[in-house]
């Protein structure tokens, strides 16, 4: 029994139309202490997947199960238990904290409501929480308002808030995208340290493959394209040996911070296909795929396992060039 089961989930906003749903029969399983990264571009459904996992919305079709039970069938105490066990860290540190509440209130409200501490124990608990996330563990800090904190500090408060309820699964939705690059890794390390100390699983949503590669080391990555899981597997393996055209093209297109390596890389043919809408019939990627054939356009490919734990939804994965995508840092061309 998995910790989190996303079982054949389909979701759309608004009434049913001819357009593809935001999520199309997506399956996903997470066990305790798993790290699963979800990668994709805007419109791929990864944010919606995150929202469904934390129960902010109810899937139109399919089930979200936590500890084997459909989350939308939970009532009363069970539902509160689910709420405590699954938490969210959002992208925008400037929007995720209530501007009118002090840090003390932001962190304390839920702790008190769920009776995890008494009023008397609260101050000490809050100071401990601040220390856990690397902030000034002082009562003075607790009295501050969000606008008095920097982006990095706010994000740490958001993480403290999520961790305060002792969750078993944390969904991080682009948790570092709006932070300065120099501090992203410290936030990622902070999240990873919580996992080491508690039995915590992560659903890590990001569009940045570099960040995903770091955070989900030893874990899995899932690549989504317009509501469909096109590839899934161990992180380093998917990055080095992508077995779906979209993953491959995506990895080829990502800029790398090394001018010599950038000069040496094969130029990717970015053309009008980049803008082609996702196909309504057959493989969702067929309008953009350089290797698509008639079968691809007619019938949606099944998900096949091409290596242990590594799946792809493609009729012709053998077409994809096998040279490794990770790039050697190069010596400068100019002395």
């Amino acid at each position, binding site marked *: 029994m998995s910790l989190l089961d996303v079982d054949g989930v389909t979701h759309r906003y608004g009434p049913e139309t001819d357009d593809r749903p935001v999520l199309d029969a997506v399956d996903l399983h997470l066990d305790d202490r798993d790290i699963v990264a979800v990668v994709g571009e805007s419109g791929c459904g990864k944010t919606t997947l995150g929202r469904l996992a*934390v*129960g*902010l919305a109810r899937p139109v079709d399919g089930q979200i199960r936590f500890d084997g039970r459909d989350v939308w069938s939970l009532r009363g105490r069970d*539902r*509160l238990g689910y*709420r*405590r066990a*699954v*938490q*969210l860290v*959002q992208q*925008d540190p*400037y*929007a*995720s*904290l*209530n*501007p*009118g*509440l002090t840090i003390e*209130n932001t962190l304390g*409200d*839920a702790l008190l*409501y*769920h009776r995890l501490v008494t009023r008397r124990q609260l101050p000490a608990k809050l100071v401990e929480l601040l220390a856990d996330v690397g902030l000034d563990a002082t009562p003075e800090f607790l009295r501050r308002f*969000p*606008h008095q904190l920097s982006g990095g500090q706010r994000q740490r408060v*958001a993480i403290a*808030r999520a961790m305060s*309820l002792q969750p078993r699964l944390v969904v991080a939705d682009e948790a570092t995208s709006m932070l300065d690059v120099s501090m992203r890794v410290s936030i990622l390390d902070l999240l990873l340290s919580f996992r080491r100390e508690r039995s915590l699983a992560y659903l890590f949503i990001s569009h940045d493959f570099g960040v995903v590669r770091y955070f989900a080391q030893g874990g899995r990555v899932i690549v989504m394209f317009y509501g469909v899981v096109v590839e899934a597997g161990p992180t380093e393996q998917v990055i080095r040996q992508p077995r779906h055209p979209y993953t491959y093209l995506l990895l080829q297109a990502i800029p790398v911070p090394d001018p010599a390596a950038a000069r040496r890389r094969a130029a990717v043919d970015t053309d009008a296909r980049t803008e082609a809408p996702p196909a309504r019939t057959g493989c969702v990627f067929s309008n953009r795929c350089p290797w698509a054939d008639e079968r691809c356009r007619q019938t949606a490919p099944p998900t096949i396992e091409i290596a242990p734990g590594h799946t792809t939804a493609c009729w012709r994965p053998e077409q994809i060039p096998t040279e490794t995508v990770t790039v050697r840092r190069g010596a400068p061309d100019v002395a």
Partner: protein
Amino acid sequence: MTRFFRDLWRICRNDKAALFGAAVILAYLVLAIIGRSISHISTGVPNAASAYLSPSWTHPLGTDNLGNGILAELVVGTRPIMEIGVLAALITTFIGVVVGLVTGYVGGILDAAVMRVVDVFLTIPGLPLIIVIVSITRAAGPLALAAILSITAWAGLARAVRSQALSLRSLDFVESARVQGLPLRNIIGRQLLPNVGPYVAINFMLAITGSIYAEIGLFVLGVAPLNGTNWGVMINLAMSQGALYVTKSLISLLAPMAAIVLLQVAFVFFTRALDSVFNPRLRVQ
């Protein structure tokens, strides 16, 4: 809190109209509280000899048909008017905000049902309904009158607050509160309410002006009971005594009207200051 008053003071200093508004409202409030003790109205036998006197030192605005000083009556009449006005605004605002926030946030069937009720209340003409109810029930006390005055006024506010709640509910920190399992009362009270606060405060001010007009109307029309002294009663009596046609008694009609207009204008000017205070703070920094 202190920051709010400091900002308010700074804005009033720069905006003369707002300063004027604040000063006038304050003056009226003070009069409402202490008015009875500084002005004297005789309720004894009317003294025909002192009726409709011209303005003088003892009676700066002259006297009315009963020989009472008009200014004195204005002062004494401030309290009932403001009492009912503020009370009605409080009731209107409270109901409007609660209904608006809950329906806007919760949505679904509750929202649909309540909004239909709101629609009904919005289509019913307010003033005629108020007149009818007051005539039938013969309501007299300030609380009863205030309640009746707000009978349709809450609907418009509920609509507006609801649309604010609809846009607020998708804010990250509100969603975060949901994910944390916080109960409805926390979400409404702690997350949503402070963010509609500014809008509600300004609406409250304007609701006071609306209620004052409505209640004056009730008194002028004679629907509300005519015991006691207040501006509406003064206008009513002045009209029925033919003050409109006689120059000497015109002032007994114009004085209460001027008092009303002055207060309303003051409220409107003051809300300009509130607007400025709230505007930069509406930014979610």
